[in-house]
């Protein structure tokens, strides 16, 4: 009998030791083990120096027939920008004869800056004057001398200098090479170049350059960028184990700790931190530019073809904030998506951020990939008709804010493609017209 009891007790002890071992191994962990001490800043990639990521938005080279617009990836573009950037520090304010240089000189090339080029004592492109924001730089020939002339956006003065031979010669050589290239020529759109039916009064807001002949664009298959979700979450939350998850009906995931929210979908990231919205201090333009550059690196990094396109003060819900927006470029054409890649920031930090970027998917072969663009005037007429249909009466005063060949990310079957389009912005309204047929792609159809 005693032996039987011993056997039973031994069996119970063996099984209970197995159970306790299992519990100890797999059961709940103490909070200090669950919550990681991740107080160091986690980033997707180190921010790149501004010198590497800040470029003129546009370079135009004058020819007899109009303008040549080299792509940013063109070696000539880079060479000209390097010479110009290295010379900015030596510009003089309102030098003698500058009026004659501008009035009589021959314009060889123009660099446009959007966002504006910061210059000043503390900046990479140092200049011995107070903070400047440069909107354009001309390369001008006057009396056989090459001049560099900078137009400031925030003051009346002109900054210029006569270039010495060591700079002038390579610059002139590069311009000549670009000029002789067989590239498509463009013309600058102006009010007197066209007539729209309906006797509309037209204003061209920004310099708009359009091709003198139809372009051949390529329809592209796209795939959304992929990222390490765990690492990405750590860039937004110091400790994301404290963030809860909301599964949306469309498959999106929201992470929030009650103060900040992050939405992840298959093709986008959207973040907001409303607690930081209210501020009484204006952030400086240069600081906004640097922070913008940091945020895109921290939260996903740079992709080939990604460019900072705008950086402007915003009245969005608050004072003192800047909105910066990036866009992907394929073969020199911008890609429009439904969710912009954008940041709203102020002196307190990043208030909102969204990111939706695509790669070219070379594994998918598309049919009919080559598209010839329709005539620009027909495209503009179509946009005006659509505007009129939407808001009757607006066509009597037309403000053409932007117009260019571009791509629109749209869904076709199971694939996302970059459809060549005419992008036209008139009176604040954006239109995407298929580049060949001019059929409208509505904003809601963008991916």
């Amino acid at each position, binding site marked *: 009998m005693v032996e039987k009891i*011993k056997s039973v007790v031994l069996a119970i002890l063996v099984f209970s030791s197995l159970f*306790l071992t299992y519990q100890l191994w797999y059961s709940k962990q103490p909070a200090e083990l*669950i919550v990681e001490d991740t107080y160091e800043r986690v980033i997707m990639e180190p921010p790149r120096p501004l010198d590497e990521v800040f470029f003129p938005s546009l370079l135009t080279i004058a020819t007899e027939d109009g303008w040549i617009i080299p792509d940013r990836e063109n070696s000539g573009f880079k060479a000209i920008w390097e010479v110009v950037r290295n010379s900015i520090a030596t510009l003089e304010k309102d030098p003698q004869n500058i009026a004659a240089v501008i009035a009589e000189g021959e314009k060889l090339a123009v660099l446009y800056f959007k966002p504006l080029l910061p210059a000043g004592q503390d900046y990479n492109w140092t200049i011995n004057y107070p903070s400047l924001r440069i909107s354009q730089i001309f390369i001008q020939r006057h009396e056989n001398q090459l001049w560099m002339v900078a137009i400031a956006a925030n003051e009346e003065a002109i900054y210029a200098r006569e270039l010495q031979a060591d700079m002038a010669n390579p610059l002139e050589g590069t311009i000549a090479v670009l000029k002789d290239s067989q590239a498509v020529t463009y013309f600058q759109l102006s009010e007197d170049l066209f007539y729209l039916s309906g006797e509309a009064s037209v204003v061209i807001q920004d310099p708009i350059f359009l091709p003198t002949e139809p372009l051949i664009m390529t329809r592209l298959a796209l795939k959304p960028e992929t990222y390490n979700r765990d690492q990405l979450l750590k860039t937004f939350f110091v400790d994301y184990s404290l963030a809860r998850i*909301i599964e949306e*009906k469309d498959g999106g995931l929201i992470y929030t700790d009650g103060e900040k929210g992050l*939405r992840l979908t298959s093709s986008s990231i*959207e973040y907001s931190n409303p607690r930081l919205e209210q501020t009484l201090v204006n952030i400086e333009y240069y600081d906004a530019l640097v922070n913008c550059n940091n945020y895109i690196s921290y939260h996903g990094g740079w992709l080939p073809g990604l460019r900072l396109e705008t950086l402007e003060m915003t009245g969005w819900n608050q004072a003192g904030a800047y909105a910066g927006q990036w866009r992907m470029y394929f073969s020199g054409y911008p890609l429009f998506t439904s969710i912009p890649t954008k940041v709203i920031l102020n002196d307190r930090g990043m208030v909102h951020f969204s990111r939706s970027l695509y790669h070219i998917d070379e594994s998918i072969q598309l049919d009919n990939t080559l598209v010839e663009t329709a005539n620009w005037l027909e495209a503009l007429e179509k946009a005006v008709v659509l505007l009129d249909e939407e808001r009757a009466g607006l066509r009597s005063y037309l403000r053409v804010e932007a117009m260019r060949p571009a791509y629109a990310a749209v869904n076709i079957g199971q694939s996302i493609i970059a459809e060549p389009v005419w992008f036209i912005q008139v009176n604040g309204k954006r239109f995407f017209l298929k580049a060949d047929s001019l059929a409208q792609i509505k904003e809601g159809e963008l991916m």
Partner: protein
Amino acid sequence: MNLGRAKLILIIAFAGLNLFLAYHLFWPDFGRLTRVAISAEDLNNLENMLEDNNYRLQTTLDRSVRTANFLTVSTSLKFQRSLILQMLQDGAEFSYTEDGTFYRKKDRTVMIQSTGLIKVLFTPPQILGQSSGEVEQNNLNYAAEQFLINQSLKPEGLTYNYTEENESGEQVVNYYQVIDELPVYAGSLKVYVTAGSVQAVEIYWLDHVEGSPTREMEVITAMEAIKNLIRDLGPAPEERIITEVKLGHFSMEYNAEKWEIPPVWRIVLQNGQIYYINAFTGNFELKNVIPEQLN
């Protein structure tokens, strides 16, 4: 060696092993049972802070070390289904609009929105209690609950919260939901009463569903939650009296498949204002944290 002695040695060895395992497994919890999260000195400091900022505590504080977990929920399909079934069995007609799905029968209309919010409108209003006329304030909660039972509108875990008078002069009896013995303030039921008759019932009820792996953690103390509230609201121009500090779960309403609700300290002031402090992070639960699309 004889078998009996071998068994005895094994029993002693396994008993020792079990004691060792049990010690490692349960010791932190043994300690937790006797641990006090808020010491007498902490309480003194809190009282000073309250006094300096013109606040007064009129409730007892939970001084024990508490742990909690995220609660994964979805809008209550179980309750919705039973309500729809009941309406259809009673011959209700249904229709869809942008606002939601409507089920109409002679004396009531049930509207179910895509967010999961259910509105039951009574036409004509249903008398609360035995006869028409004003129901005494003290009995309103009891009468409303009886009404819900009689109309098969009482979901599981219904707990009385408070009664208030809204801008239209209606008495609104508020209930919250209890899941696993903890209040879930995100789930709510409101009974709208005018002159002793129920005009409408509004129900936003949640189901506890399976979620991500457990993340049970120690929460901040009730004292920390009060301190955070005072830091955020700042000194009170007129005395603010704290009447309740209670641990529960809370989140905003989401039009989602399922979501996690964090534990919160609910702090109620005498003037009726309610604040929710996230019991993990100590932050206020804000309304507009879900990212809106930037244009």
